[in-house]
């Protein structure tokens, strides 16, 4: 595979990652959200493998495989099971003003391009143009967590952020050292178990996973 094609391919995949991020921002259905998250992980995993091939970094194959197992298969599976067990599929979320969220999302993308400009200029890697997309994915994940009021969506936002961070590491530096990548993956795995436990706790205590129910802890005036 020559470099030209590789650059085109990574840009193409980066575009898809961003597209899935936007898709998650507007998705109203729980299963749809989980599926979009799985797709994002899939594009990420392919992208990592391509970068690994072009740059000759074999440890990226391991990262790629790890992403595929963790974020495309395991986590979406756990989320699917949780949604079915807790009977969440009926709860179609009411998202506050989708067009507005979209506009903020677009502004975040522009902001990310602006912010990463100095890094892009300094970088010599084939993936340098995708760093802005990675930061945008992180920001959009964050936006999703702020604008959504459901525990499951907040967690998917959190995981999408993690995806963005992983993408950033691949595109800025061809991936962090393997120790770090493995450690981060381990943390994500532990976090997944914890939020699984949490969903049950919240569900049994509040009878719903709507985070808006949780507003007992406020500052008294």
């Amino acid at each position, binding site marked *: 595979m020559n470099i030209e094609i590789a650059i085109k391919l990574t840009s193409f995949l980066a575009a898809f990652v961003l597209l899935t991020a936007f898709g998650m921002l507007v998705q109203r259905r729980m299963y749809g959200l989980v599926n979009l998250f799985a797709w994002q992980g899939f594009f990420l995993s392919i992208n990592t493998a391509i970068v690994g091939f072009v740059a000759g970094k074999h440890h990226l194959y391991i990262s790629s495989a790890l992403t595929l197992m963790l974020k495309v298969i395991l986590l979406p599976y756990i989320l699917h099971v949780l949604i079915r067990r807790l009977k969440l599929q009926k709860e179609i979320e009411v998202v506050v003003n989708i067009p507005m969220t979209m506009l903020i999302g677009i502004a975040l993308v522009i902001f990310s391009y602006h*912010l990463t400009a*100095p*890094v892009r200029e*300094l*970088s010599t890697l084939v993936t340098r143009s995708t760093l802005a997309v990675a*930061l945008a994915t*992180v920001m959009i994940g*964050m936006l999703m*967590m702020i604008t959504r009021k459901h*525990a499951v969506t*907040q967690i998917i936002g*959190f995981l999408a*952020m*993690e995806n963005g*961070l992983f993408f*950033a*590491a691949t595109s*800025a*530096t*061809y991936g*962090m*050292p393997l*120790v*770090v990548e493995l*450690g*981060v993956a*381990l*943390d994500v795995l*532990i*976090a997944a178990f*914890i*939020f699984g*436990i*949490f969903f049950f*706790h*919240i569900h049994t*205590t*509040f009878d719903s996973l709507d*985070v808006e129910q*949780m*507003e*007992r*802890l406020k*500052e*008294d*005036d």
Partner: protein
Amino acid sequence: MILLTLLLVPLVAAVILAFVGDRRLAPEINILGSAATFAAGVGLALQVYENGPMLAGGKFFFVDAFNVYLAVLTSFVSMTTAIFSRRYMRREREHGRVGHLGMRFYHAMFQLFIFAMLLCLLTNNIGVLWIAMELATLSTVLLVSLYRTPTAIEAAWKYFILCGVGISQALFGTVLLYFAAEKVLGEGGEALLWTNLNQVSGSLEPTVLSLAFVFLMVGYGTKVGLVPMHNWLPDAHSEGPTPISAVLSGLLLNVALYALVRCKVLVDGSTHTHHAGNIMMGFGLLSILVAAFSLLRQKDIKRMFSYSSIEHMGIATFAFGLGGPIATFGGLLHMLVHSLAKSSIFFTVGHASQMHRTQEMDKIKGLFKGNPLVGWGMMFGVMAIAGMPPFGIFTSEFLILTATIKDAPMLTPFLLLGLAVAFAALFRKVQPMVSGEIPSYQKFLKVAHVPVLLHLILVFILGIYLPDFLSKWFHTAAELIK
């Protein structure tokens, strides 16, 4: 070798405690594990004191005057907290607030948390630092929700989400740091080591590093509990079991600040400006002021003292941001005395709220008469934390103020205002709790004397006399990070 013991003891203890579970000896094993950790910590400190900074485990670990003193502090406070929690948690178990599984979980996670903090402090690798910090969050999330009440679950969820988001920003900052370092140091793990980074900090790309610092500041700043990223802190501290509040407040905040300070040194070395310091001063001052005024409005006793933690972390952050030998020395001392004083306060607060079966300050009364150790312990603790002489916090705050008057005179009034408001608020709130008659619902309980007294005596001694080895440590550390 000693370093490995220091890390392995809490890890092994966590595994053992996971199996021992709710059996009778679990709290004792917990104390034993923490005591062994403390002994290893002292051993390591002696080694560093004699031979100077050292690398271990093939450059994977790095110990110098700065992190070894925090490691000793961490292991010491975790030991006294384990002693305190023996009676406290047994009583919670008898009251039925914690179940069989809860106790098993509590002890195992307590040790795992200590392991995560020690790994944070001792690792030489910025990436591993991040992982350990996240592990520290994850191991405490379910401890905060241990009581399973709606408010506890809400607090834990908030803690999980906010710290998760925060720390993700720190990871992005770390990626940027690695990007800059890789150009100079080449690829692979070598480019993430503090020791290597500090050597070449002059040739790292300044624009990328100042960008990275913004992310690191927000990320680790969330864990330090700096305003405006502090929202999780009062909730997590007030809803979790008291021993956990003590270690969160006394230790975890310090560890996060440690990470931030190391990053600041690196960024300063690269940019040759006071940019990073200024950002830290801004966040620090804002935290002091907001927390001081929030103190006035609190009704829940643990919540009030967690705002006080935000204030003190603000002071330390401000001091490190200000830089210079005096302010840095003050900041280091402040981290030490705040940990000791704040954890002792949380111990007495835990006893007081168990005696009254409530955390509402209106209902807590007559502690002097009801249980002198709790009453006077809380009184002296508050005197210490508010910065009355001759306690150690007075010394550190005085040093920081002196440096502020010299280097940033314009900020002195704000700093003084924050300190004065906090002082007044704490005394106004604590006075009615300790004095007065014993209410009918108050119960006399046996309390853990050793942790409270030990901490207060140490804070007192540090206020009037700073041992030579400690001041030598602090000077060396201040030299490293000024």
